[in-house]
């Protein structure tokens, strides 16, 4: 049963109910029809037999020879089925068959025929075979209003083959019983199936809507049946889920706002501290060695702290969706070259492969951050030489994209690290508690790429070394209008 859908099962069930209903109706109709058909057949046989008898002229007193001649004549015209005809007159016995006396005719029928000069029939089952026996007493008309019983009773014995009757009855039953029954049962069945399936469909739609993030989706509860209970339960669960998710989101928002607030609060004192680190550095030489080391430590860590706080603020701006894209059209190769020059990455460690003439519309500052973070990461965690490649391609969706590739010659990224490489503060090496960077570099790079509507991927080259690939839509057409 699991192989079928709910709809199929419902329809099958209703179909079965319909068939049972129709079958019952058909069976009743069949019985009625059969009885009626039997009666018709019997009546036809009786009246037909009477007619045949009446066509004959009898002599009285009769003799067997005359009677048999008469009987054979009647037997030949047997309708609607062949019959064997017997005659009894006094002690005379004659028949159209081989035996002059029938073994099927009951004494009861004889008695009835002799005592009451009216036609009669009796159904007899002998050895499992049903027979229709008809007794037809004879009279002759003696005057205008009277007749005289002649004492001659003519019997007909007819074997009832019920096949025809059954077939006819079945046809009648099917036509008058099953089909209307089926129609009558199927219509409410389908309506019921619809009424069951509609809430199920609604539930399906609601569940899908919930899945797509519309947590305020609710179902209209109709009636008080099991489906209404289900809808009610769904609504309750949805409400709980919505509440939990809202709570979670609030908590997350609070946490983010807190991080953002902390960062902002840190920025002002840091600005003051950073302004005086130079003084500390310069004067450290005049201090005793311990103090000098302490002073230099403070100076160095203040610088790092400033970077970290700036990165945190940047991240919280992404989280708050407050990051803006200030795009400009420029030459991609030049932009990357400037990034490398500004960072003094002009020695042999970096191998730029930057074809000229690729115009792209992007936010120069953010693109600078992306390239700088990727190259910085490659230098810190990979190994030189670091190749920076640039090319334009047609992306998977058919629009032209700018591909920036940063590939180092280090050991590559461990497979278990790959899925988390863009996570915030993710430490590839658990033993290393702090990296030289803020731990947010790749996360910020990824956010910046996403802000451009692009994609960033990390992987390993077959020949060894990690490779980061950035895809950014070119958007050149809209920019050169």
């Amino acid at each position, binding site marked *: 049963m699991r192989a079928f859908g709910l709809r199929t099962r419902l329809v099958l069930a209703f179909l079965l109910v319909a068939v049972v209903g129709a079958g019952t109706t058909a069976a009743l109709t069949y019985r009625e029809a059969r009885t009626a058909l*039997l009666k018709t057949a019997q009546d036809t046989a009786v009246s037909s037999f009477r007619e045949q008898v009446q066509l004959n002229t009898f002599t009285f007193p009769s003799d067997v020879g005359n009677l048999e001649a008469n009987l054979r004549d009647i037997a030949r015209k047997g309708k609607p089925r062949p019959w064997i005809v017997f005659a009894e007159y006094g*002690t005379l016995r004659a028949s159209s068959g081989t035996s002059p006396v029938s073994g099927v005719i009951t004494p009861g029928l004889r008695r009835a025929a*002799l005592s009451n000069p009216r036609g009669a029939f009796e159904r007899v*089952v002998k050895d499992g075979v049903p027979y229709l026996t008809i007794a037809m007493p004879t009279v002759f008309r003696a005057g205008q209003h*009277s*007749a*005289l019983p002649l004492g*001659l009773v003519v019997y007909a014995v007819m074997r009832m083959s019920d096949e025809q009757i059954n077939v006819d009855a079945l046809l009648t039953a099917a036509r008058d019983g099953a089909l209307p029954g089926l129609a009558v049962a199927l219509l409410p069945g389908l309506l019921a199936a619809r009424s069951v399936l509609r809430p199920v469909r609604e539930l399906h739609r609601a569940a899908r809507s919930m899945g797509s993030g519309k947590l305020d989706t609710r179902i209209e509860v109709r009636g008080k049946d099991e489906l209404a209970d289900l809808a009610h339960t769904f609504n309750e669960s949805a409400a709980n889920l919505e509440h939990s998710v809202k709570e979670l989101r609030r908590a997350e928002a609070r946490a983010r706002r807190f991080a953002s607030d902390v960062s902002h609060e840190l920025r002002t004192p840091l600005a003051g501290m950073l302004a005086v680190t130079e003084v500390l550095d310069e004067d450290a030489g005049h201090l005793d060695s311990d103090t000098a080391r302490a002073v230099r430590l403070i100076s160095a860590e203040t610088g790092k702290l400033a970077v970290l706080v700036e990165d945190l603020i940047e991240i919280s701006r992404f989280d708050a969706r407050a990051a803006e894209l200030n795009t400009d059209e420029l030459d991609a190769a030049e932009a990357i070259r400037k990034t490398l020059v500004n960072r003094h990455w002009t020695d042999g460690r970096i191998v730029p492969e930057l074809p000229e003439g690729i115009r792209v519309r992007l936010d120069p500052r953010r693109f600078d951050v992306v390239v700088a973070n990727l190259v910085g990461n490659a230098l810190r965690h990979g190994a030189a030489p670091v190749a920076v490649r640039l090319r334009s391609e047609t992306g998977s969706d058919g629009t032209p994209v700018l591909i920036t590739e940063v590939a180092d010659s280090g050991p590559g990224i461990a497979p278990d690290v790959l899925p988390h490489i863009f996570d915030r503060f993710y430490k590839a090496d658990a033993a290393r508690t702090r990296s030289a960077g803020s731990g947010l570099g790749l996360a910020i790079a990824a956010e910046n790429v996403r802000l451009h509507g692009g994609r960033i991927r990390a992987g390993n080259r077959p020949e060894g070394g990690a490779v980061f690939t950035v895809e950014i839509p070119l958007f050149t057409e809209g920019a050169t209008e």
Partner: protein
Amino acid sequence: MRQARWALAAWPVAALLLAGCGIRETDVIEAGGPATVEHFSRNGVDSLLFYRLPHGELTPVSRPLGTEGQFGSSYQTRPASTEKVIAALFSGPSQAEKGAGLTTSLPRITSGTVRLLPRKPGAEPGGISLSVPVAVRDLAETATQQLVCTAAYSAVGDGSVRVQLVGQDGETAFGTCRLSIPAGDE
């Protein structure tokens, strides 16, 4: 389990269907009137005599007792007289009739005559009185009916006349032939 439930539900239906099958026996059911047949008799020539069937009921037989008219002659066809018919009745069933199991309830007589008596004044109109040479008071009902029916059908075609028997021991009340039944329309 599910299939078992369906099967359970299907049982009554099947039973119901099967129950309707097969033709069952019935009692004796009356269906319409008797067969009204032609009686092979020559009108005016044949007379009806009533004898007893084995089971006790009376049945008419015809006898050519009248005078048959000759074609082309002036000799007219004349039915037999009641006296003659009654006399023939007293003589009992013929050989053929005996063969068919017919018997008579009348005593065998050797002498005496049968006479149709003239109508008495004040007597019932449309009735006939018949003098027979037997004691009529002690006659069995069947025997009386034999006489009444035979006489009635001899006197009138439809046997509707009332008959009084006058015997050696007196007379009976006027009676009718109870054998006749209303004719059907068929």
